[in-house]
Every structure is written in structure tokens, then in C-alpha cells.
């Protein structure tokens, strides 16, 4: 049990990544596939943040005197995820706009009925 307790962030993020990949691979509705991509995005962000975590560490901000660098978590993954979240929103909007266009053209969001996407 203590293994689960100690690695709960890794387990959660891998779980989110796997749920997202499963949806992308198996589901046939385009909107569901986009939701799966978003799950994948969230899981990867959580994985990066939890790799950079230091136990009992605070945020890497020297907001009051007396804080030492040894008490802080790693700033590099946080900086990466900071930009990745905003880019994730923009890419999600782009994918939704493509879904809108596909629906207008084919009248369906079922990937089996959209030509050229047989699987």
C-alpha cells in the first residue's frame, strides 16, 4: 500500500495517458477522439510536473527572506508545462475547428464514414 501512496502521482498520470490513448485508438466519434487527445495532454503535463517534484518542497519563488534553494521543487518542468497548457488549449481549438469543417462536409462525425479514414 505504501508503494501506491508514494507513487500516486506517477500512477495517476500514467492512468490518464492510457485512458487518452485508448480513446484515441478505439473510439470512432471524432469529438470523443479529441476528448481523448485532451486527456493525453493532461496526463503528460501531470507526469512532467511530478517528475520535477521534490518531497516537502515549496514553489520556486523567493518571495520571503529565509527560503533556501534546497527546499524548492525543480523549476524547469514547471516552465515547460506552463507554456504547454496554453498551447494545448490552442491545439484543442484547432482540432475542434477541423471537426466543424468535417461535419459540414460529410454530415457525420463517424470516422468510418469519412472517406480516407478507414480503420
Amino acid at each position, binding site marked *: 500500500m505504501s508503494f501506491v501512496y508514494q507513487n500516486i502521482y506517477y500512477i495517476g498520470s500514467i492512468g490518464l495517458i492510457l485512458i487518452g*490513448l*485508448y480513446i484515441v485508438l*478505439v473510439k470512432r466519434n471524432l469529438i470523443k477522439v479529441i476528448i481523448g487527445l485532451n486527456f493525453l495532454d493532461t496526463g503528460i503535463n501531470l507526469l512532467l510536473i511530478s517528475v520535477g*517534484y521534490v518531497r516537502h518542497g515549496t514553489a520556486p519563488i523567493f*518571495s520571503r527572506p529565509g527560503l533556501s534553494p534546497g527546499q*524548492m521543487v525543480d*523549476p*524547469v518542468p514547471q516552465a515547460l508545462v506552463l507554456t504547454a497548457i496554453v*498551447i494545448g488549449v490552442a491545439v484543442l*481549438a484547432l482540432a475542434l475547428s477541423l471537426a466543424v469543417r468535417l461535419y459540414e462536409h460529410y454530415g457525420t462525425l463517424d470516422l468510418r464514414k469519412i472517406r480516407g479514414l478507414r480503420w
Partner: protein
Amino acid sequence: MRKVIGIIFLGVIIWGLVLSLSQVPFGKDKMEVGRRYLKRGTEETGAANIVTSVVVTYRGFDTLGEVTVLFIAALGLGAVLYTRRRSSERIEPSSLVLRTGCRFLFPLILLFGTYIFVHGHLTPGGGFQGGAIIASGFLLIYLGCPERRTQELRLGATESLGGLAFVVFGLLGLAVGGYFLTNFLPKGTFNSLISAGVIPLIYVAIGFKVGSELAGIMGNLMERTK
């Protein structure tokens, strides 16, 4: 059949992830680069928030690339959804409560977003977060006051000026200090608003750019649903 193949594929991915993550124990201090930034960051950049100094100075070039990705995504969305405007469409006005509420809240949300990106080098905040908050204010306007059109030309101009300011600050650093995005302004007193040289200026530019870009994306998507 698809499900079986999918589950086998996921098993392979689980195996790889667990194998690599077992080398990286959770909660231990491990990154040499991060420790270096934490130790020397405050004296090298003058910013209290080390995440900000990583985003804007140490990895500023990377951030420029990411802002470009954001720009290209917004551009692609505009191109995919482009249609001729039909001006004869009647807009249904929303209820009085909703209209008054969003008129009251919109300037406050803009103020809060501005606060977040101006204090990016001191508090947990910055251009990306502040820009997202400003865009949420625009979303409120799109939902609550549909008769109020945002002028897309001005949004585009703000976005371009933000991106241009980022590149110009980088090139000024190249001209003064010898490499791209040098912190060429004086660092000021630590932990005060006017400090850290060029970092707040670049973050304000990023804030304007991200805010107007996300507002433009939402505007394009809302335009289609009418």
C-alpha cells in the same frame, strides 16, 4: 479486433513507461540544471520567481518558439473556419441580468489579468496565465453581450505588436549584450515591482499576445455557432 490491438499497444506503452520511471524515484531531488537555476537564478536575472526567469531568460528562445506555435494554431483555425460574413443575421439579445453582470465583471477581469502578468516575476503568475484570464473575460462578453462585436483587426494588431515587442527586446539584447535576449536593463532592487530588467517587459508583451490570440480563437469559434 481494434480493442485487442489497442490493449496490446497500451501494454507495451505501460511497460516502457514503468521501466523508465523506475529509474526516476518520485520526490527526490535529481536535476542538475534545476539546482543550478535555483542557486544562481536570483543574482543572474534579478527575478524572485525562478520559473519566470527560466521561461523568459534561460529558455527565452524556446518560449519564442512556443509563442510561434500558438500563433500558427490561431492562424490555422482562422483559415479553416473562414467564411464570408453575413451581416443580415439577427442577433438575439441576452437577458438583462446576464448583460449587466458581464458588463460589470469584464473590466475587473481585465484588471485581474493585467495584475497577474505585470507581477509575473514576483508571484506565481505571468504572461501566459494573465493572457488566459483576459481571454476568459472576452469569453464572458461573447456569451453575455452577443451584440458587442470585438474588432478582429484590432485584436490582430495587438497580437502582432506583442510578438514584435518580444522579438525587438531579444534583438536589443543581441545588440547591447552580445546574445539574443540578454537582460540588458539594470536589475533594480530584488523583490520589488520595477526589477529584473527586461523580464517584466517581455512578460507584458507575451500577456498581450496570448490574451488577444485566445480571444481571437474564441471569437472565430463563436462566429460559427451563430
